[in-house]
């Protein structure tokens, strides 16, 4: 007789659930008020076990009835969650499979802001780049200007007394039109004072997935 958690894991795997993790608790107690601890060597298999997986609502609905049957003693919990990032190693295959090439019409986005602009205690340009990475934008570059002024008319200039006062910064981003549209909305929500400029460009070549090849590929 296999342990129940093995059966559940096997079942989830057969159902094609994206991934599941079984973790063993260190100690705990449940409905019987019996303490499960590893202190008694023999009772090691009585330690609490928790199996967790994240998948689409449909998939969860699909497997839930069976889990309900399988688990005669325990707790099943379903929680709404937002998947922020799914990162997986590319399956080993032909080397070309790791590269995704895109060429064609695209958009170039330029955001003008100040170096001193802040977002929840960190530089705004940093926060924007992080946000873009999370949105899986193809790439972004931050440029620091040496002189400039914005619509407010205040000058961005490095002076002897204030060497790092507030130089102008430009972030440039290239991606497909809909990704740039998404990026623009996200950036506009974070920007308090600045200029967002988009233009049409022709993407000649974009290679994704170079990290595996040389470890120094473009930031995702």
């Amino acid at each position, binding site marked *: 007789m296999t342990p129940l958690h093995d059966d559940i894991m096997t079942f989830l795997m057969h159902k094609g659930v994206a991934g599941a993790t079984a973790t063993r608790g260190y100690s705990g107690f449940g409905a019987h008020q019996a303490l499960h601890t590893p202190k008694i060597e023999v009772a090691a298999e009585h330690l609490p076990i928790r199996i967790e997986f994240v998948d689409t609502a449909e998939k969860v609905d699909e497997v839930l009835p069976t889990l309900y049957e399988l688990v005669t003693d325990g707790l099943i919990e379903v929680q709404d969650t937002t998947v922020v990032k799914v990162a997986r190693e590319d399956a080993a295959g032909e080397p070309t499979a790791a590269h995704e090439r895109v060429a064609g019409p695209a958009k170039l986005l330029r955001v003008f802001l100040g170096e001193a602009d802040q977002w929840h205690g960190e530089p705004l340009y940093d926060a924007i780049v992080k946000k873009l990475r999370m949105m899986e934008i193809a790439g972004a570059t931050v440029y620091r200007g040496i002189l400039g*002024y914005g619509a407010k008319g205040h000058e961005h200039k490095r002076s002897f007394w204030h060497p790092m006062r507030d130089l102008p910064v*430009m972030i440039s981003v290239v991606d497909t039109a809909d990704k740039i549209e998404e990026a623009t909305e996200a950036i506009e929500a974070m920007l308090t004072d600045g200029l967002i400029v*988009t233009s049409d460009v022709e993407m000649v070549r974009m290679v994704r997935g170079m990290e595996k090849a040389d470890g120094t590929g473009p930031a995702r």
Partner: protein
Amino acid sequence: MAPDRPAKLLRIHISERDRYQGKPLYEALVDLCRELKISGATVFRGLEGFGETAGLHRPQLVGSDQPVVVTIVDSAENVARMALAAEGMMGTGMMAISEVRARRVEKQAG
């Protein structure tokens, strides 16, 4: 949300060593932008490059000669006025204008 409006982006490529009436040309150009009430200007310094004279602009021990780009975004009329005025101040250099859509973001801080 402010809507995007059509605008022009002007880039003026010059050398950091270029001067106009005793001050760096890029500074003179930014001052000119102010005079012409251009909504904003940003100067970027490149690492190295070459242009019309085919001389390589790169950092030197004495007198930096790195390429510099002055970038402005404004309406077509303002950009045209600026380009015309800038031309008179420049020796060698290059100006490029491209079509863009601009969205000005201005929120009250906090």
